[in-house]
């Protein structure tokens, strides 16, 4: 179990002032808390690429934002991430909810597919978003770790420390729906 309330407490402990996000099922519980939170401002975007540019602007303006998006939206965000947070060397933590992760685990399929195994992308028992998430993070030089349950919550502050140390975006893959 991964409790949204505890995730939010960790984000606050890391000095997060804004969460920039596009709603998805796995992070819905966190969004519901943020909408009414007095300390962390929730900024809702229309497409995930916006989130990286907006969060970068927040950092330039002196704030400390976190981005929360689904892996599908992260994939859409490629050039926004590259051209803003990465190009500008901005310490930014991004929580990426991992759609398709459990299906992929059930099928015991590695997240690093064999090259040119095209059939995997159309199998109904697999979500192609999951297949390309980790390879894409690696290709885009985004360090990442997994947030699978409350036991992993310390990884949030570790991600912020790493982002700060490297002046670079760091991702946490959220494998369970928050409750």
């Amino acid at each position, binding site marked *: 179990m991964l409790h949204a309330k505890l995730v939010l407490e960790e984000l606050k402990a890391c000095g997060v002032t804004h969460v920039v996000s596009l709603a998805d099922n796995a992070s819905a519980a966190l969004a519901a808390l943020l909408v009414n939170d007095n300390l962390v401002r929730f900024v809702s975007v229309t497409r995930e690429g916006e989130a990286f*540019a907006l969060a970068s602007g927040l950092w330039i303006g002196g704030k400390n934002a976190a981005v929360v998006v689904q892996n599908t939206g992260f994939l859409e965000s490629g050039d926004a991430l590259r051209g803003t947070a990465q190009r500008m060397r901005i310490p930014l933590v991004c929580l990426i909810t991992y759609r398709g992760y459990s299906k992929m685990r059930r099928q015991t399929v590695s997240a690093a597919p064999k090259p040119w195994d095209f059939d995997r992308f159309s199998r109904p028992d697999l979500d192609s978003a999951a297949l390309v998430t980790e390879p894409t993070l690696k290709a885009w030089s985004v360090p990442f770790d997994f947030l699978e349950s409350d036991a992993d919550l310390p990884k949030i502050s570790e991600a912020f420390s790493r982002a700060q140390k490297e002046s670079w975006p760091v991702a946490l893959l959220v494998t369970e729906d928050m409750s």
Partner: protein
Amino acid sequence: MLTKEQFLKPLAQLRGQAVVVTSMGVTRPWGKDSSSELDFASADSAMGHTADLALGIALAQPQRKVICLNGDGSMLMTLGTLATVIGARATNLVLFVVQNETYEITGNQPIPGAGQIDFPGLARGAGFRRVYYFEDADVFEKQLPEVLSGEGPVFVAVRVEPGTEGPIARSESEQSRYLRVSIAESAHGLRTVLMS
């Protein structure tokens, strides 16, 4: 229709302590008129993401005006940002769209729907209450103080003649101060200024 000079000069005179974020065809010309440490060139960045970057700065600095000089082609790439600006209640953001109807940087190819897009209408439809449209230099100069004052968000479409700016580079040989450093250096420098 305004020349770039007719658009930028009055703005440079009236911007005060506002952050100015530029993009595409006005990047170099703005840098000739201004050398403020509050300028930020969204050049060598993510195409189409100037308005959302400026929105972030505006939300972080609610007491300070943030002026975004976006291109019309760039605006079309992230039209959703108009809704995001409204949802975020960015009352200190003034979003200019330089409407030259072309992708100037790549040789003035027409933008999709060139000549048919109602940019002020798009902004109104997204929820902007203060929307301006200018195609006359004298009217623009006269009304600019009003545009820049009061509560926003403000949307301003300005018909500007297409120019001949080529791709924007960052190098020590650039005339504009803010293009002589990397975008990372520029971002970190502006943060330092805004936090001091």
